[in-house]
């Protein structure tokens, strides 16, 4: 269960960012922002030869005392960043991978919608959201805070 999930566009601006509400969300935003450097570093290190060979899942970007940040980048340089609680030891790498896969699938579904302009924020509010399925999926992955 993630504490914060963010989708960053190719130009490194956030398309979608969502945190568990109880926390200081700004902190998560900052963490995601700093993790982008790590992502870039990994991309450049790995993807020199062929982008295709680069694996989409980046793994643990960097751990902090309380949280761990995982990254995933798509072939179009859209990045998914996920912050999980360090105390959540039951969360295995496999699960993180599957979460990213689900994120990726939902993201592509949003992309497929012709009414979504790439580069737009993935709106998560409103009675009829642009990405209700995406939202629901993200909600399901977030920590259920009582």
């Amino acid at each position, binding site marked *: 269960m993630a504490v914060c999930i963010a989708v960053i566009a190719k130009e490194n601006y956030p398309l979608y960012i969502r945190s568990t509400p109880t926390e200081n969300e700004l902190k998560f935003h900052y963490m995601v922002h700093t993790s982008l450097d790590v992502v870039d570093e990994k991309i450049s290190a790995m993807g020199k030869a062929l982008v295709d060979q680069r694996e989409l899942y980046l*793994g*643990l970007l*960097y*751990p902090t005392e309380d949280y761990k940040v995982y990254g995933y980048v798509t072939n179009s340089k859209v990045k998914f960043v996920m912050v999980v609680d360090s105390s959540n030891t039951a969360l*295995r*790498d*496999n699960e993180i991978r599957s979460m990213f*896969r*689900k994120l*990726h*699938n*939902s*993201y*592509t*579904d949003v*992309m*497929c*919608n*012709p*009414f*979504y302009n790439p580069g737009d924020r993935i*709106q998560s509010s*409103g009675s*009829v*959201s*642009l*990405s*209700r*399925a995406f939202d629901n999926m993200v909600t399901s992955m977030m920590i259920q805070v009582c």
Partner: protein
Amino acid sequence: MEGLTLSDAEQKYYSDLFSYCDIESTKKVVVNGRVLELFRAAQLPNDVVLQIMELCGATRLGYFGRSQFYIALKLVAVAQSGFPLRVESINTVKDLPLPRFVASKNEQESRHAASYSSDSENQGSYSGVIPPPPGRGQVKKGSVSHDTVQARTSADAQEPASPVVSPQQSPPTSPHTWRKHSRHPSGGNSERPLAGPGPFWSPFGEAQSGSSAGDAVWSGHSPPPPQENWVSFADTPPTSTLLTMHPASVQDQTTVRTVASATTAIEIRRQSSSYDDPWKITDEQRQYYVNQFKTIQPDLNGFIPGSAAKEFFTKSKLPILELSHIWELSDFDKDGALTLDEFCAAFHLVVARKNGYDLPEKLPESLMPKLIDLEDSADVGDQPGEVGYSGSPAEAPPSKSPSMPSLNQTWPELNQSSEQWETFSERSSSSQTLTQFDSNIAPADPDTAIVHPVPIRMTPSKIHMQEMELKRTGSDHTNPTSPLLVKPSDLSEENKINSSVKFASGNTVDGYSSSDSFTSDPEQIGSNVTRQRSHSGTSPDNTAPPPPPPRPQPSHSRSSSLDMNRTFTVTTGQQQAGVVAHPPAVPPRPQPSQAPGPAVHRPVDADGLITHTSTSPQQIPEQPNFADFSQFEVFAASNVNEEQDDEAEKHPEVLPAEKASDPANSLRVAKADSKTEEKTAASAPTNVSKGTAPLAPPPKPVRRRLKSEDELRPEVDEHTQKTGVLAAVLASQPSIPRSVGKDKKAIQASIRRNKETNTVLARLNSELQQQLKDVLEERISLEVQLEQLRPFSHL
């Protein structure tokens, strides 16, 4: 409760409603569900409804008695008229119009009176308050009248004055009409024979407004767009006038696509008509959509690209957000293009939306593209679509796939007669049922196809025999495992042994012949085996020491050979001798090994354990560890059971106890140690099950022993213990073959049990293997992380 004075009309109306709600014919208390539907139909905000319920005393009483119901109805009227809700307003508000229930009975009651005579009593089928539009043909007529009624009701809604009048007219008939309507829809909805978009246009407009009102309440799930359609249906005679009353909502639509709207209205109506399926698309609507599709894409089997669809739907002047939502709903296979069915669904949703219906959260079943293309005209709303996730750029949404089978299954039903529609709707007014089907379907056979390994060997007999032997031995000596073997028949011993051997072989982890005796599911077995192997690998010591018990029956040549291998690799020639002895039926040996086996059998890991068990008999005479096997078996069985969660009811107590200990470890250990035991256990699950009752106490001690063993032996202790146990068991084992007749039944029973155990074990095996894989992956990832973290060490 204050005294409630009702006018005659009100009295009649209320009593009609009461009888409508009183589906249980209690005449005293109405069903809450119906009442809630009714209140929803009243189109009041939820908090108002709650307030009403509280005021009328239903919340206090917990049910709706007649008086509460009447008060509630009065309050609904009060609320609808805009007066504040007060208890005293019941009597103080004068000239209160009758409460209006959208598409609810009220309207219908007022309306139906006459027109529904043609309709059968559909009441039951309605999910919503409004009686579904009548079916085709005659139904149609009924529906039309129904529509008119609905239109009228909606008209009523719009015109406060009218309801007062209409109820008075209709109350007596309302219940009947209502019922009729409900029957109706099933058939008629889909096929409302609408003249065509054009002529319906205006009526639609009216109808829509009217029907929408009515329908809104109707399905409760999604605002039934059909309501509007209903009104349009009304184009038939009586409604026409009424329809004119509802022009408002409809007129909006005309802007962009008047024709489309008309079609939509028709569709919507159709939807509403099918009480069970408000989102069904009528034929006319569909035809209209198809024509529109052709303007964009002449090939009906082709796709409309997203951009073209975007332009087209943007013309409808709906907000982009809503359009994107519609797209999300209708692009079923998420490929960014619309097939004909998807397009029709999207169009339908657009029309519905323009008519004021809220978009559903999930695509209604009738709009879902079918997996099978059904061109049947009777199938109205369905949009058979190819559920092809082919085009989707990303992986097909996993959520869709699971739902597809359910959809597929429901489609044929849906496409069939309208009665089925009724049933369908009754079953589930929304796609939730589909998902429920999924869930129902998926777990349908947890044991059957996927995991169940096809036991080729006659494990049961062997295990059985082993169990028996163990039992016997147990009686003789203190070996707790023996009691585990309750099964007396040892004739099956051979089979059991074979099976157990097979298990062992399959499971043999360390160097034992790893031929997958499990034939059933090669992958499973293989995985199990590999898991076993890996597991056993973790405890090499364990596997080595306990040689597989000698197979008593010669028939299990394979097992024998396996045993031989095991014995060769593991133990002295004694085992071999034991193995050799198997064919000639070495009753004593298998028994002890079997004894532990059955006890243990349950564990999935039983594979390893089984092997142990199977080998254990062989080893029994030779090794002192035999006893350990039995313990292991029990332990493994318990472990497996625990992991399997369930099947272990045989040794309930064993399971919980075992569970306490580290199941994985214990299993591994157990595997290593009592592979044969496991096998026998597995094969002997049936045996064990047989002896569940008597075995109850014994397993405990055995379990404890196993537990302690597990804890102790990480790898070595077991040997000693096992040998001790084995020896004891072997010593005490009585002769195997007892009574043939008894054995046969016992064998069969044990075969069954063993098969069950096999399944359980196989599953456990696979689970454990999966765990192993996960652990390995974690390990790898940790190593990688470690690598990666080095540069970050300074952070």
